[in-house]
């Protein structure tokens, strides 16, 4: 996850803002964002140019992705709009197998001639690289679906909402924070629309319209006298939704400890910023944690990142095989551990599933970027490791003959590869609330929201911070804590889970910027969970003096 990129976007890193433009992304007018440049029928004609050209050149498999990627990004601080950026990126990527080897080429010349040339390059690259290939690519079979469509089930297209309305919401967010004691308030709104057309020599022509949204803020309180400053980030989650996420509904609000409000499928950004300002003020004088072992009560908007790093990544088959060894790393979760059928990844409470169909999630699509229909599958069942995340050219290594449908490319000009699906912790089956969970803890810490995160390249040792920390003593929240981070080992940590709250507490955490690959590509992914308890976890104190 490229946190630094995001920090620069929000203006907190460098003085100036950097445009969040990808390669070949062009700023466009608002009106242009709502245009539809090509009909599905026109894209089919273009896609067939690639399929026929590649076949004529001896390719044994071809897929073509005609993509239009739209972004709108609004950035504000206090009472100022810092930046509004609209971008569009339109082009086509062609991937082939020739001589048993992958080849890929892309172009923004979306014409029959441009596509033909790109296809010829893709085949030439495949043939040139075939001399380095040790064994030919083997694809798991996939059904040709014919002409099909899939759309994110949004209620309100965020690109159709007037910019003035969005700006007004962000400025009210900042104002709410400032009125409640914040020294500074930055707020941002990211909106994404991927219009993806996929066709393959397997007989699929898939037209998809994918939407994502992420409202967020950072509220800071400065105490000049002590020289201390504290920040509290938004408790929102990036979602695979339209603007309806920003229309708060009471049924989506959950009460947290010490007056916290937590959000499920809709978000009250103005309310959250007001609460954030009060909490940031409280952090200035909160006590510093005593290091030691604590029972941790982890709220879903915090636990999602721990799931992401310590379960989502280690179970990616390409990194297990060594394809990411020079960058993201490899994994402790070996094929032998999977095949043993007895590897205790976690306690019996731990049921982890991958799901590319979860409504409202960032990873939800109808079909992945190699035309495989998306599904749900188990990764960990009653604590035992039962499967990995794999795509068409690798799943046979597991002795399976069906791709998991988690192939993705960040744009038309990037080659698709295995990416993390939504990976979630199933809620506990017995009725159990977070209030009950806190009441049962003698010495613990309640942690909400995402914070600092770091994990080793084989995903054993990790350290996580959070957004807010509350001390629990004898079943009661006694006050806020500072300087908290927990360190653990993946298997030990998930085996220390003694309870998971029920589905009423279940909600999603998400990330827009999961990074992988060289050249690096980002992908967006969600992680659902209910508040969960982990016993006797090592907590360190991160306070220092400089």
């Amino acid at each position, binding site marked *: 996850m490229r946190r630094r990129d995001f920090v620069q976007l929000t203006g907190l890193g460098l003085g100036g803002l950097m445009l969040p433009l990808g390669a070949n992304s062009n700023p466009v007018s608002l009106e242009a964002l709502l245009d539809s440049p090509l009909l599905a029928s026109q894209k089919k004609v273009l896609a067939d140019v690639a399929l026929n050209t590649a076949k004529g050149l001896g390719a044994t498999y071809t897929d073509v992705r005609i993509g239009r990627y739209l972004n709108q990004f609004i950035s504000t601080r206090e009472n100022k709009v810092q930046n509004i950026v609209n971008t569009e990126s339109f082009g086509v990527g062609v991937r082939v197998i020739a001589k048993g080897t*992958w080849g890929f080429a892309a172009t923004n010349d979306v014409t029959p001639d441009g596509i033909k040339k790109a296809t010829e390059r893709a085949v030439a690259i495949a043939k040139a690289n075939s001399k380095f290939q040790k064994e030919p690519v083997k694809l798991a079979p996939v059904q040709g679906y014919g002409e099909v469509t899939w759309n994110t089930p949004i209620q309100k297209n965020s690109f159709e909402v007037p910019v003035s309305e969005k700006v007004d919401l962000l400025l009210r967010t900042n104002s709410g924070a400032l009125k409640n004691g914040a020294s500074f308030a930055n707020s941002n709104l990211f909106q994404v629309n991927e219009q993806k057309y996929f066709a393959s020599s397997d007989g699929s022509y898939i037209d998809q319209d994918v939407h994502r949204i992420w409202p967020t803020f950072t509220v800071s309180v400065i105490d000049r006298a002590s020289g201390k400053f504290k920040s509290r980030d938004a408790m929102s989650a990036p979602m695979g939704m339209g603007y309806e996420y920003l229309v708060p509904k009471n049924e989506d609000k959950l009460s947290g400890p010490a007056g916290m409000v937590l959000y499920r499928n809709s978000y009250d950004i103005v309310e959250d910023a007001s609460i954030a300002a009060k909490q940031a003020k409280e952090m200035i004088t909160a006590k510093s944690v005593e290091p030691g072992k604590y029972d941790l009560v982890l709220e879903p908007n915090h636990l999602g990142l721990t799931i992401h790093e310590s379960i989502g990544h280690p179970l990616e088959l390409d990194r297990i095989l060594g394809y990411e060894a020079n960058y993201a790393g490899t994994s*402790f979760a070996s094929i032998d551990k999977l095949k043993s059928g007895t590897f205790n990844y976690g306690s019996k409470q731990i049921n982890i599933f991958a799901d590319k169909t979860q409504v409202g999630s960032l990873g939800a699509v109808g079909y992945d970027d190699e035309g495989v229909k998306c599904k749900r599958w188990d990764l960990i069942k009653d604590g035992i490791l039962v499967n990995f995340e794999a795509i068409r050219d690798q799943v046979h290594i597991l002795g399976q003959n069906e791709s998991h449908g988690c192939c993705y490319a960040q744009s038309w000009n990037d080659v698709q590869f295995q990416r993390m699906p939504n990976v979630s912790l199933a809620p506990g089956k017995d009725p159990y609330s977070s209030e009950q969970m806190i009441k049962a803890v003698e010495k613990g810490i309640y942690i909400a929201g995402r914070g600092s995160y770091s994990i080793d390249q084989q995903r054993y040792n990790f350290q996580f911070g959070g957004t807010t920390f509350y001390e629990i003593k004898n079943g009661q929240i006694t006050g806020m804590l500072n300087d908290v981070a927990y360190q653990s080992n993946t298997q030990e940590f998930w085996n220390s889970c003694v309870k998971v709250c029920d589905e009423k507490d279940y909600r999603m955490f998400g990330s827009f910027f999961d990074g992988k690959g060289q050249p690096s590509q980002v992908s967006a992914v969600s992680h659902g969970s209910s508040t969960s308890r982990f016993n006797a976890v090592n907590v360190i104190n991160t306070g220092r003096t400089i």
Partner: protein
Amino acid sequence: MAILSKDEAQQILKKVIGFSKADGIEANLNGNDGGNIRYARNSVSTSGEDSNVNLGVQSYFGKKSGTATINEFDDASLEKVVKRSEELSQLAPENPEFMEPLSQQAYQDSKTFFDSTANITPDYRAQAAANSINPAAAKDVTAAGYLTDNRGFSALMNSKGLFAYGKSTSVDFTVTMRTNDGTGSGWVTRSFNDVSKLDTAEASKVAIDKALQSRNAKAIEPGKYTVILEPAAAGDLIGLMFFGMNARQADEGRSFMSKKGGGTKLGEKIVDERVNIYTDPWNEEVPAFGFTGNGLARKKMDIIKGGVVSNLFYDRYWASQKNVEPVPFPGNRIMDGGTASLEDMIKDTKKGVLVTRFWYIRPVDPQTLLYTGLTRDSTFFIENGKIKHPVKNFRFNESPIIMLNNLETLGKQVRVGNGEGGGAPSLIPYMKIRDFTFTSLSDAV
């Protein structure tokens, strides 16, 4: 098309400025030709090339501005993009922090472009990968590496008469070598403007040797250790420190550079007096353009001199508010080194840890610039002046400010490239640091 000469770029930009009907206009013309090859499991996994030229135009009326871009360069397209930026600026809300473009500045050329790199071919990349894979396979080691090369130009013109042009090349190479028994891992990085300095066989040998030497690492207790940081490791933390040296954040009280009671630490001693960190676009090892994206002239400038903070970075708006000259974010980073060789530094160490690189470094507390991360790909225990044995990886929790206060010895400088400390090329010395804080052990190899 991708690499335009100074004259070609100037000709296009003059036309663009000529089409303007706004209060003012600024145009950036950038082009890149890039290539890469990636390998893993001792076999090439992906390779590719990309080429792109883009014109970005910002027009403004008063404090309202709009940006549009295009990648076609006939007259009609140039006129269209100017018109589009003018339309967008009329739709934009007023930005009270908008700054009008600069008038002509004096720039000094920098030797950032090398024909050797500009002429890299797919065959070169394939051979570079083979020179890395073949020696690995011969030693029962598996190579995973990535070589990326780039040649590009950047040109800027505005309606106040400013024009700037530069072209550059770069090549970055990293490889991770893992022993086939899974118990050893080595890594190396190389970064140059001139590819004739790159020898992937030589670099790969370093990583292979480390992989073999790091097999069967022993666990030692975490705690405070004297460490010898190789330049890639130290450079990551130094680079991250730069990102925290923004003047506005310091003035606003939300930076490790903010002072109790108000004000900033500009002019104060914050680290050991032997620490000299500066930027110099004309340094031959790490050359950078003499201008920034918005036309500010870069210069040789101290960041920390004798342990004292010499400069924070001011964007043009904040500089105008504070009545100071803008200080652009540096295009390179240089830290003075010493004369000690790595062997000397090891010899002078009674008990310590030699660190090849850090991994997954993330901020923990912006107040103290505390970061956490881990050692990776060969970590060794030093005792009585000798490397005794490889050790398991550690997690650290440390601030570069504390680290630079605990400086023992500076060694020779090495250029390091795109690490976790950001993209700017850096010239960083080996450094020996006392009391570096390791907080836990990792089983990762």
